[in-house]
C-alpha cells in the first residue's frame, strides 16, 4: 500500500510504525521478496486495522504466507489482554478450526503406486468433496451436540479411531469449555450432513511420499520415514463453523454497533462479556466439530487403504488448527500475562518442553505442517520456543495465495495444469475444472521460501519434505 511506511528491522523482520488509530506497531515476518508480494494487496492496511483493536498486545503480526483476507489478513496473528481485550470472530475466520492433519504409514511408495488410481477413486467416492454432497455419516441432533462437546473423543468412542489418535491432536482433539447450546440450530442444520466431507475451495486430501528427511531426530520422533507414504488432510468445521462465525458477527454488531470499526468484518466483543463468552463457547464447539470431522475422514482413509493394502497401518502424526483463538500465557516485557491469541491462517508453534504437546514430542517441539500448493511439496516442521518470543508461538499455515481466483481462472488453463501434474507423475482426482485453475500452483507463493524464512527466523524448524503422488479435491 502506498503511503504506509514499512521499516526493515533485520533480515526477515519488518515493522509498520504505529500511526493513526494503531495501539501497537505492525510486524511482518517475511523475506524481501515476500514483503514485495504482501505489499501488492490490502494486507498492510488490514494489519494496521487489527493493530487498532482494544487490548491488543505488542504487535499486529503477519507471517511469511500472509495475504489479504477480510477483516484480519490471512496469516495474521494478534494477542489480546484477557481482561481488557476483545475477541473477534473475523479474527478466527468463518472456517473455525480449519486445520491440517498428517497420517504416516508403513507403506512404501512402490507398493502404493500399484494401486494408486483405485485408492484415490475410492477415497474420492467415500469422502465427498465439493458442494451439496452429503457425507457417509448421518447423525441425529443429539449426536451432533455430543460431537460439539467431545470432539475427537466422540469418534473414538464410536469406533472411528484409536485412543492414540486423540493424544496426537492439538488439545487432545477436544477444546474444554465448549458450549453446544451457544451454537444455533441453523449452524447445526448446515453441518449435520457434512461430517466426513472435505469441502471445496482450497481444501484437499493428498497422498504423499516422504521425499527427504531434513532433521533425523525429529522425523524419528514424529514417525516419519523416507520413502514411505503419508496422507495430508486439510479441512475444517464445514457449514457449522461458517454459520457460527456469521451468527456472532451479526450479534456483536447488533450489540456494539459498527461505526467505530475500520472494517465492519472486525466486529468484536470484550473477552470478559456475556457475548464474548458465548462466542468462545460456540467457537470451541465448532472447533470440536472440525477435529471430529478430520478424524472421521481419517477413518474413511484408513478403510480405503485397508481395502487395497490389507497390511497398511496409518498413524496420526498430529492434527493442527490454523483458524482459532486460544488463551495462552506469554512473557511480555518481563511479566507473565494471560492473552487470547487469534490465529487466522496460522499454526501454533510450541517448542521443546511445552506441556501442551504430547509427551513423545516434548523433546522436539510440536509437529507443524505447511502444505504447498497443488502439485508442489509440503513440509513437516517442528515448533520452536523462539516463536514464543517473537510471534506469539505462531508459524505459517501454507504457501499463501498470491493471485486472485478470478485471475487464475481467466489466465491459467486447467488442462495445462493437468498436463504439468501428469509430467510430475501426480494423479489428480478433482470435482471441477475451474477448481483446478483456481488452485493452480502459480496462484500461490513459493512454499519453499515460506518454509525457509520460518526456519531462518527460528519460529519453526524444517523436519521433512513430502512430495505429492495423488491429490483429491472438490
Amino acid at each position, binding site marked *: 500500500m502506498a503511503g504506509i511506511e514499512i521499516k526493515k528491522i533485520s533480515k526477515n523482520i519488518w515493522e509498520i510504525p504505529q500511526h493513526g488509530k494503531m495501539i501497537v506497531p505492525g510486524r511482518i515476518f517475511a523475506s524481501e521478496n515476500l514483503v514485495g508480494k504482501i505489499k501488492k494487496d490490502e494486507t498492510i492496511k488490514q494489519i494496521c486495522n487489527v493493530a487498532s483493536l482494544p487490548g491488543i498486545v505488542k504487535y499486529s503480526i503477519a507471517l511469511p504466507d500472509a495475504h489479504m483476507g*477480510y477483516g484480519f489478513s490471512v496469516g495474521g496473528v494478534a494477542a489480546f489482554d484477557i481482561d481488557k481485550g476483545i475477541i473477534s470472530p473475523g479474527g478466527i475466520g468463518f472456517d473455525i478450526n480449519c486445520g491440517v492433519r498428517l497420517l504416516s504409514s508403513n507403506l512404501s511408495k512402490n507398493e502404493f503406486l500399484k494401486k494408486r488410481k483405485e485408492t484415490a477413486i475410492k477415497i474420492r467416492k467415500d469422502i465427498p468433496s465439493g458442494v*451439496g454432497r452429503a457425507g457417509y455419516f448421518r447423525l441425529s441432533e443429539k449426536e451432533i451436540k455430543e460431537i460439539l462437546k467431545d470432539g475427537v473423543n466422540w469418534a473414538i468412542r464410536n469406533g472411528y479411531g484409536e485412543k492414540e489418535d486423540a493424544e496426537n491432536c492439538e488439545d487432545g482433539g477436544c477444546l474444554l469449555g465448549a458450549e453446544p447450546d451457544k451454537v444455533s440450530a441453523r449452524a447445526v*442444520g448446515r453441518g449435520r450432513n457434512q461430517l466426513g466431507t472435505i469441502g471445496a475451495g482450497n481444501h484437499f486430501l493428498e497422498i504423499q511420499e516422504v521425499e527427504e528427511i531434513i532433521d533425523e531426530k525429529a522425523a524419528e520422533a514424529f514417525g516419519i520415514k523416507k520413502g514411505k507414504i503419508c496422507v495430508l488432510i486439510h479441512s475444517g468445521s464445514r*457449514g457449522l463453523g*461458517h454459520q457460527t462465525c456469521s451468527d456472532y458477527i451479526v450479534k456483536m454488531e447488533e450489540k456494539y454497533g459498527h461505526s467505530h470499526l475500520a472494517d465492519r468484518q472486525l466486529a468484536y466483543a470484550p473477552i470478559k462479556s456475556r457475548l464474548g463468552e458465548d462466542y468462545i463457547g460456540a467457537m470451541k464447539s465448532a472447533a470440536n466439530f472440525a477435529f471430529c470431522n478430520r478424524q472421521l475422514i481419517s477413518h474413511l482413509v484408513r478403510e480405503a487403504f485397508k481395502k487395497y493394502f490389507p497390511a497398511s497401518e496409518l498413524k496420526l502424526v498430529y492434527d493442527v488448527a490454523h483458524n482459532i483463538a486460544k488463551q495462552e500465557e506469554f512473557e511480555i516485557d518481563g511479566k507473565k500475562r494471560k492473552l487470547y491469541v487469534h490465529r487466522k491462517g496460522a499454526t501454533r508453534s510450541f517448542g521443546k518442553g511445552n506441556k501442551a504437546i504430547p509427551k513423545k514430542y516434548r523433546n522436539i517441539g510440536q509437529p507443524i505442517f505447511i502444505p504447498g500448493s497443488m502439485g508442489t511439496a509440503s513440509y513437516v516442521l517442528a515448533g520452536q520456543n523462539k516463536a514464543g518470543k517473537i510471534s506469539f508461538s505462531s508459524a505459517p499455515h501454507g504457501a499463501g495465495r*498470491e*493471485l486472485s*481466483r478470478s485471475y487464475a481462472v481467466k489466465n491459467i488453463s486447467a488442462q495445462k495444469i493437468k498436463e504439468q501434474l501428469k509430467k510430475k507423475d501426480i494423479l489428480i482426482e478433482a470435482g471441477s*475444472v*475451474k477448481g483446478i485453475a483456481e488452485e493452480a500452483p502459480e496462484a500461490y507463493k513459493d512454499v519453499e521460501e515460506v518454509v525457509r524464512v520460518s526456519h531462518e527466523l527460528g519460529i519453526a524448524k524444517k523436519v521433512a519434505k513430502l512430495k505429492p503422488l495423488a491429490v483429491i479435491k472438490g
Partner: protein
Amino acid sequence: MEKNLKKFEFVEHTADVKFKAYGRSLDEVFENSVFAFSKITAGKKKIKRAKKKNLKIKGKGAENLIYNLINELVYLLDAENFIASDARIKVSDDLKQLEAEIYGDSSEKYRGLFHIKSATYHDIFLKRNKNNLWEAQVVVDV
C-alpha cells in the same frame, strides 16, 4: 435508463470473491445479487428453475439485508441442497425486510459446484452510484 444493464461483475480480491451488483431499482439490485451468487456457485452450469422457495428476510438496513440474503442462499445450499438460479424480490421502503421468490434446483443434480462459506461485511456497501443506479458490493468467503 440503460436498457442492457450489466447485472453484476467480479472485482479482484486475492483470496475471496468480491462482486458488484447493479439495479435500476432496489428490488433489481437484490435480484442481481442472487444472479451473482448463482454464478459464483454454479460457474458455467445452467441451473434449472425446477423449484421455488418463498422467503421473508429481515435486516437492519441495506447492508445487513443483503448480507442476510446471501447467507440465506448459502444456508439453503448447505442445509437443504437447494441451489438458486434467480429471484424475484420486493424490498420494503425502510430497507428492513424483503420478500423473495427464489428459483432454483436440487444441488445434488449438479457436479463441480462451488462453495461459499459466508457473505462478509468487509467492504460491503449498497448505494446509488454516479449513473443513478443502485450498486451493491459484497465479498464472500469461498
